[in-house]
């Protein structure tokens, strides 16, 4: 199938822009909607995401805590992660 080169170029450009946006944007997942003060405190703790655009994603399945995603990095500060780490630790001991 032959694709119009102009169309292909436009698609690639938009894809790159979208990827760039995605890498530039910070996603903060929490069990409830975080208020501005909490967001500011999070940004203060992690200077590497301070100047980036952020989005608060509410996940009701999350027990508590927050998960921060930016680019390919994930900072998991959720209760699930704490419990899973504990579980891994117990498995290692066993």
């Amino acid at each position: 199938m032959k694709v119009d080169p102009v169309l292909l170029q436009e698609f690639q450009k938009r894809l790159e822009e979208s990827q760039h946006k995605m890498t530039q944007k910070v996603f903060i997942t929490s069990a409830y909607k975080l208020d501005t003060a909490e967001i500011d405190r999070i940004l203060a703790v992690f200077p590497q995401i301070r100047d980036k655009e952020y989005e608060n994603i509410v996940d009701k399945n999350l027990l508590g805590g927050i998960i921060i995603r930016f680019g390919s990095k994930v900072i998991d500060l959720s209760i699930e992660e704490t419990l899973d780490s504990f579980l891994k630790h117990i498995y290692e001991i066993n």
Partner: protein
Amino acid sequence: MEKLGIDPKILVAQLINFGLFTFIFVKFIAGPFLKIIENEKKKDQERALLAERVTKQEAELANLEKEAKEKIRKDMDAAVAQVRKETAELKKELMHQAQQEAHDIVENAQASMKETKLQFERELKDKLTTMSVLIVKNALKAYLDENMQKSVTDRILKELSNPQAN
């Protein structure tokens, strides 16, 4: 001579007759007859010798048979003794081997049981841990409201802001 009743002619004739008879008897009857008798005597002697030889050989054969039987009996006894000795050794060796194998089997079984027990314990511990964490997660899900979740977030951020406080 005539007075005596002897006729010389007849006498001469009788003498000739007797001489002829003697000659014929000696030549054709007595000689072969004596020869036959001698031959028979010789054959008897040969038979006697042969019989004696046969008796001697029979005695020798009987002696040889006795010696051979004795030798066979001794060889048989020695062979039986050797077989008994080898059998006893083989039995001893087989017993030892069987005992060793039984010991190995028992040891392997014990090791296997121990390993299985440990494995079972590990699996049980893992399952218990998983189940405990699952129970904790479910309990927290039911227990944590938004205020508590806010407290959790606050605590996390406090710990992150001041890591030396822990």
